[in-house]
């Protein structure tokens, strides 16, 4: 096993180990899970440290290839192909950290622990595997592998009376999205003429011979809406707040934080570079749909009474920024989109983790019932305040860097949308986030919450970890942006080489790269 594959094979292996442990040995089961996710996190950090931005052939490092299925009569060739570049590096590291945090907060689970931890580990392995795969088959395969545990975990260990409805809603929505995307991926396989699912080979084939226009205009919408449903693109977002509201804490953290980025990553990795002409027709529409996410879902979040639903809606709203950055299709915007993907992963995990910790003590997340908690739980309360401020886009947190870059990038492409989005983000976001802080933490102390206890030293670990990541990337974004930039530039270069009338503009690209560097430093 190489470094990259062991990052996600380790949790899968641990899942098998957990299956073999008798169910009474709860402590051992938990220890194995924590150990596996911790090791996988360390490996991911090692990967991050070893990664350098030096250019290589095809742009991927830590490449690992094996043959898997090869049947010439069917023109079927599916190979195991892993690799990282600037785009998925950050996602893998973020995913591994969030997975460890999710394993830490899983102490709230008090029944069927063995099944729970098995599913958690399978989900972790699936998520990280999906981001590491450079073969579309395994990309999809690992995503599905991670989705099924999500459904089961919501159904078995979820909260609230809407749990059954939420389970089936999220199952059907996400499966529909995945299947539509699968249709697009298979069509891509066939129409590209390359008869391969390998992203690198597909890229080469498309560079040599672009996809016919008819094929592009068929496949791109399939991918856009298939992946869009998976990312809760407005108006296909209604599963998200409901599902996250009902999910157990760790599941919400992993899905909202990491797994949801799968669709965005797919769009960025496959949809836009391979089908530039198909994308050109849709990006404008996508930009307006982003407004639905940012403004509409922001307004919906404002009306929520339940903290989890508020966070769920705000997480949907944040997806709008990523879409907007991708749609802007310039270096600043796309780099920003990737930064937001990573930052939002930490943020979503942090907020859902905190709300889970609150619910474990209070038994409710209705904001009207809570109030004045900051005095009882100074650590958790302070973490909530920081998370909320990061969510509003306060400088110093990674989200600010990403969102600012996205807005700078999209200004050139869609001034109107950007203006509205900025308002939506700054005003609406600030209103609901700050209101939540006031309702939960400030105000008069209520007698029923006098017995609340702050997090113990162990319970603080995941939150400290996630906050540290947010702050580190917030004050030192070049750690990430320097790695993203070359890869993002390669994707944009492919997306720009569409037709003769819009020839590649190398000068502008270089300029944009310079700007990105400048802006990346600015937040300090």
């Amino acid at each position, binding site marked *: 096993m190489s470094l990259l594959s062991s990052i996600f094979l380790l949790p899968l292996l641990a899942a098998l180990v957990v299956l073999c442990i008798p169910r009474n040995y709860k402590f051992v089961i938990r220890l194995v899970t924590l150990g596996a996710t911790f090791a996988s996190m360390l490996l991911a950090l090692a990967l991050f440290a070893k990664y350098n931005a030096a250019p290589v052939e095809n742009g991927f490092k830590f490449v690992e290839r094996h043959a898997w299925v090869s049947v010439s009569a*069917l023109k*079927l060739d599916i190979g195991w192909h892993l690799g990282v570049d600037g785009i998925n590096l950050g996602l893998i590291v973020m995913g591994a950290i969030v997975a460890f945090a999710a394993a830490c907060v899983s102490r709230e689970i008090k029944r*069927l622990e063995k*099944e729970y931890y098995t599913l958690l580990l399978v989900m972790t392995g699936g998520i990280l595997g999906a981001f590491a795969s450079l073969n579309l088959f395994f990309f999809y395969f690992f995503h599905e592998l991670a989705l099924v545990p999500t459904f*089961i975990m919501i159904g078995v260990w979820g909260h609230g009376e809407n749990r059954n409805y939420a389970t089936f809603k999220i199952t*059907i929505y996400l499966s529909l999205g995945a*299947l539509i995307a699968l249709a697009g991926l*298979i069509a891509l396989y*066939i129409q590209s003429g390359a008869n391969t699912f390998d992203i690198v080979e597909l890229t080469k084939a498309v560079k040599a011979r672009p996809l016919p226009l008819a094929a592009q205009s068929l496949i791109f919408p399939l991918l856009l809406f298939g992946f869009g449903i998976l990312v809760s693109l407005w108006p296909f977002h209604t599963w998200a707040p409901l599902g996250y509201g009902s999910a157990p804490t760790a599941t919400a953290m992993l899905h909202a934080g990491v797994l949801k980025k799968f669709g965005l990553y797919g769009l960025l990795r496959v949809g836009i570079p391979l089908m530039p002409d198909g994308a050109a027709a849709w990006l404008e529409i996508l930009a307006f749909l982003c407004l639905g996410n940012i403004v509409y879902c922001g307004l919906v979040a404002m009306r929520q009474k339940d903290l989890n639903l508020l966070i769920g809606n705000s997480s949907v709203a944040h997806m709008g920024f990523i879409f907007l950055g991708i749609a802007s299709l310039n270096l600043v915007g796309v780099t920003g989109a990737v930064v937001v993907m990573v930052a939002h992963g930490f943020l979503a995990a942090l907020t859902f983790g905190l709300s889970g910790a609150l619910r474990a003590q209070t038994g409710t997340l209705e904001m009207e019932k809570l109030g004045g908690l900051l005095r009882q739980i100074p650590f958790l309360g302070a973490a909530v305040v920081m998370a909320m401020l990061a969510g509003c886009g306060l400088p110093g947190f990674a989200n600010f860097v990403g969102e600012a870059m996205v807005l700078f990038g999209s200004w050139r492409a869609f001034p109107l949308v950007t203006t509205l989005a900025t308002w939506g983000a700054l005003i609406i976001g600030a209103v609901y986030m700050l209101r939540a802080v006031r309702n939960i933490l400030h105000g008069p102390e209520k007698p029923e919450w006098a017995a609340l206890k702050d997090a113990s030293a162990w319970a603080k670990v995941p939150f400290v970890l996630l906050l540290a990541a947010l702050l580190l990337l917030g004050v030192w974004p070049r750690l990430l942006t320097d790695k993203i930039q070359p890869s993002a530039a390669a994707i944009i270069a492919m997306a720009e080489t569409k037709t003769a009338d819009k020839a590649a503009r190398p000068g502008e690209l270089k300029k944009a790269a310079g700007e990105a560097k400048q802006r990346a430093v600015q937040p300090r």
Partner: protein
Amino acid sequence: MNASLIVLELAVVLLGLVVLVQDWFTPAKDRRTLGYGAVLGVAVMLLYSFFAFDGTETLYAFGNAYVMDGLALWFKRFFLLAALLVLIMATEFSERFDAGQSEFFALILFALAGMMFAASANDFILLFVALELITVTFYVLVSFLRRRVESLEAGVKYLILGALSSGFLVYGIALIFGATGTMNFNELADKLANNAALGHKQLLTAGILLVLVGLGFKMAAVPFQIWAPDVYQGSPTPTTAFLSVGSKAAGVVLLMRLLGTAIPDLAFNLEKLLMAMAAGTILYGSLCAIPQRNLKRLLGYSSIASAGYLLLGFAVMNKAGSSAVLYYLAGYLFTVLAAFTVIAIVVQEAGAEDISSLSGLAQRSPLLATSLTLAMVSLAGIPPLAGFFGKFLLLKAVIAEGVRWHAYYWLFAVAVVGVLISLYYYFNVVKAIYWSKGGTDLTPIPVSLPTKFALLVCIAGMFWLGLNPDGALGLAVEAVKSLRLA
């Protein structure tokens, strides 16, 4: 003369007769050993099939009525494996019969012989005889629990509709013979290739359609599916399992032969019909499964939906589709037999076939719970299990045809709807296992050693086909080589 080709069939029939004869010398309490004997015998034959034949060349026997090629051999092994697992289940189940345990085993073996002949049918006569051998034995197998009204009802329904479909089949064969003057698949294909006008004869078209009725009945494809839920529900569980795997596969192999060997030049005329049948079957099976509370009935509808997915592979009319069909069937074998093995035990314990009898299964027997969960997950088409790769291959074949004709995209859309609906009812079963309330009986369920073995084989098969498809897919591609499809 190549009588040595039918050695496997002969051995199966002989084994059945030995079981019947040995019954006289075996005291009633030891009859189970006969079942295990049959299991062993079938296992030996399965092993022998790997040494005796390799299926690379096409051999004929009995005036070209019987063919032994890769496809036939693939299906023979398939049927042998299915029968092996079903016999293990039947031996466990036989305690519930008042009498006639040995006859039950023998009948399964005779049905197996019919299926193996069907795999080699290269002539309408052999096709009919093989199908009748299967169907007539199943009339008895379905109504074997004579004291239960449901079982008798199922038997009568299967008898009436089965006889009707046999009538259609025979009528169709007669029309085909009338139009072309031959019963042999190869001769028929030659005549059609040499004489284009023959293909436009309405008599021939009518004959082919009537044959399709008979095969559609075997596969439980819409609109010939109406018997399936009732019969699945009423039959003894081992019969249901064999019916859903073996009988369906027999329909599949005969349809494959018909399209790929007998009428390859006319097959394209059936494209739209098969597409419509596939779409209708998927939707009917999936939609009707939603409200079901009876486990066997649920699987009956799910088996109709599976017939629809198999028909997708026929509708695309090429080898990619056919090999996908074989792959899907192989996964279906392990999946469905695992499900029915668990259901047989649970039903025996609970005395009810309702979905709620699964509650608490996770505590009562982790192995049974895991097996059934994996089976449901595989049927729903979720990685890393067999069902996923099978459905993937079928859907890929459908999309590949979409380039030629956009209607295939709509067929794909229908299949997607079917998959989505199926998630609902398969997850309902999983839900009943793990998080339903009201399971008061938490006594452990004992699982015998042979059953454990059968379940582990099924689980291993599901994972193997899902995680390492290379070898099995290669076999499937080899098997369909002899078909004259695109």
